């Protein structure tokens, strides 16, 4: 009872990275709280899934295994989690800030009347004093998230309602196996006790899911473009540089919104958090929400014709000038000097 729960997303029998990242974070939070880490997997044909989950330090794995639970639809997964949480009374429940977690989370929080904080960038344990009521709360979950387009960072708490719920985007937390031989306990749920026929009112008629071909999260070098690239054509230059030096192409939210490239390439708080070896920001002014998603890059180069661009303050190398002039030269001198 009163443990930390992580809802694990599963697609084609593979647990999502975001869920494994949350298990890693969940383990360290559970250690601080001296409670157990419990995971929930809802899907079909899940035998053996514990071998993936337990090494992250999971003490209890709840499995709901039923053909009707795949592909994901809202109500069946919701009903299972709501009832399970009512039985187990977790103090904290975490899920990915994905189209699944952001679909389920609010509905569960509404049903349980508990607070949910979306898209947290950091989770910590701390205390809180309500001076008016004269109450000191210990061991609360600090849910830290950007707000107001990323211009401020807010620490949110849920003093009175449980579970304290939060969603976190993929790539924000680090994924790390605790112990390959870690052994937990399996709790196989009797699905019929958790769902009703009415939960299956929505049917999935078609489904085309692709494993994304674009993976900016694990690219060692990212050449990223902003609104300053001017057009979709302008982005070609970035692809040229990326292919020569062995990197991927990323983008700011403004560039993605303007249609210069695919959403999968968006770096930042509302996109993907990246930590490459080298980040080359081309024509990116550096809105806070962008910087927050790439500031942990080992080396940052900013190419910008505005010397006062905010991104320059966190860059290791600043090139003052037009991207169109600089990139062809970078390609040329790279070719001349490499080997």
């Amino acid at each position, binding site marked *: 009872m009163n443990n930390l729960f992580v809802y694990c997303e599963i697609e084609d029998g593979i647990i999502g990275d975001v869920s494994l990242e949350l298990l890693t974070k969940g383990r360290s939070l559970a250690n601080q709280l001296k409670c157990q880490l419990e995971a929930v997997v809802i899907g079909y044909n899940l035998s053996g899934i514990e071998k993936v989950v337990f090494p992250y330090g999971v003490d209890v794995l709840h499995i709901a295994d039923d053909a009707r639970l795949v592909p994901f639809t809202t109500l069946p997964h919701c009903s299972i989690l709501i009832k399970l949480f009512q039985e187990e009374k977790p103090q904290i429940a975490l899920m990915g800030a994905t189209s699944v977690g952001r679909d389920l989370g609010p509905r569960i929080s509404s049903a349980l009347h508990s*607070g949910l904080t979306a898209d947290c960038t950091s989770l910590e344990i701390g205390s809180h004093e309500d001076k008016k009521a004269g109450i000191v709360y210990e061991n609360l979950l600090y849910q830290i998230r950007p707000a107001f387009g990323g211009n401020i960072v807010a620490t949110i708490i849920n003093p009175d309602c449980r579970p304290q719920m939060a969603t976190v985007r993929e790539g924000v937390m680090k994924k790390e196996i605790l112990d390959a031989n870690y052994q937990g306990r399996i709790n196989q749920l009797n699905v019929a006790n958790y769902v009703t026929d009415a939960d299956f009112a929505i049917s999935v008629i078609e489904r085309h899911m692709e494993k994304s071909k674009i993976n900016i999260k694990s690219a060692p070098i990212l050449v990223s473009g902003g609104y300053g690239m001017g057009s979709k054509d302008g982005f070609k230059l970035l692809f040229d540089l990326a292919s020569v030096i062995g990197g991927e192409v990323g983008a700011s939210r403004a560039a993605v919104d303007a249609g210069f490239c695919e959403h999968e390439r968006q770096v930042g708080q509302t996109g993907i958090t990246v930590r490459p070896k080298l980040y080359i920001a081309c024509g990116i002014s550096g809105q806070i929400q962008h910087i927050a998603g790439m500031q942990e890059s080992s080396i940052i180069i900013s190419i910008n014709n505005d010397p006062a661009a905010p991104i320059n303050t966190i*860059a290791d190398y600043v090139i003052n000038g037009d991207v169109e002039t600089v990139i062809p030269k970078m390609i040329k001198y790279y070719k001349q000097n490499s080997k």
Partner: protein
Amino acid sequence: MSLNILVLAKQVPDTRNVGKDAMTAEGTVNRAALPAIFNPEDLNALEQALRLKDQIPGTMVTVLTMGPFRAAEIIRESLYRGADGGYVLSDRAFAGSDTLATSYALSCAIRKLKNIDLIICGRQAIDGDTAQVGSQVAEKLGMNQITYAEEIISLKKRIIRVKRRVEKGVEVLEGPLPMLVTVNSSAASCRPRNAKLLMKYKYARIPNELQASNEDYTTLCNSRDFLQIGEWSVNDIECDPAELGLSGSPTKVKKIENVIFQAKESKTFTTSNEDIEGLIQELISNHTIG
């Protein structure tokens, strides 16, 4: 088969175009420096509603917004594009509401509207980016939900078919009304204002605006029903006051910080051949590239 469609829309500060004066010296948000706009994904939602109205005769599109009185602008903008009417839900009692308290207040107002077949709203608002209110309203009303919609493909015999766009692809879902659908920015943009509707509705007001205004449109508005935008306070909806505002919000803001990034000592280069070659050589020699 005619339909009763409700669109939920929010007036938001335009956080996408944050200028240098958007933050005060104390590090708080200077709301006055940010223009108030129609939340972009709510416009996508309105378009989906208007398309159904175009297809299904007798369909009514009503817009509900919660916020200060000036949010009546959202209703007017909706009327200019083809909505049939709207309500502004406004009360100091709602101040400090988190998403749960907001969805509670909205759900109480929606119950008052009765016989709503379909609720359409934006996936999320740009001032919070939480994507919570839609799902929470659906839960409170006991409605099923389809989130991340890109297109309402069809609505026949009270079965709605919706294309969703999620991270890794698309799927088509089908389910019976009543339903709540949240719409992505990848959906069709909203149609522009219609000139005739603009002329028709430009004096549409909520009672509070008529009282506060120096211009006297009262006689005009009172003589034409379509110029009267509904205005509801907490007294107009059936609700438990303890569930509203700060007291109804399980989440509390403990702390707000301005974002300050650690400035680094950086090397600056020009676009000269020597500078760029020097930089490339440095990156190769320290094994960053190559």
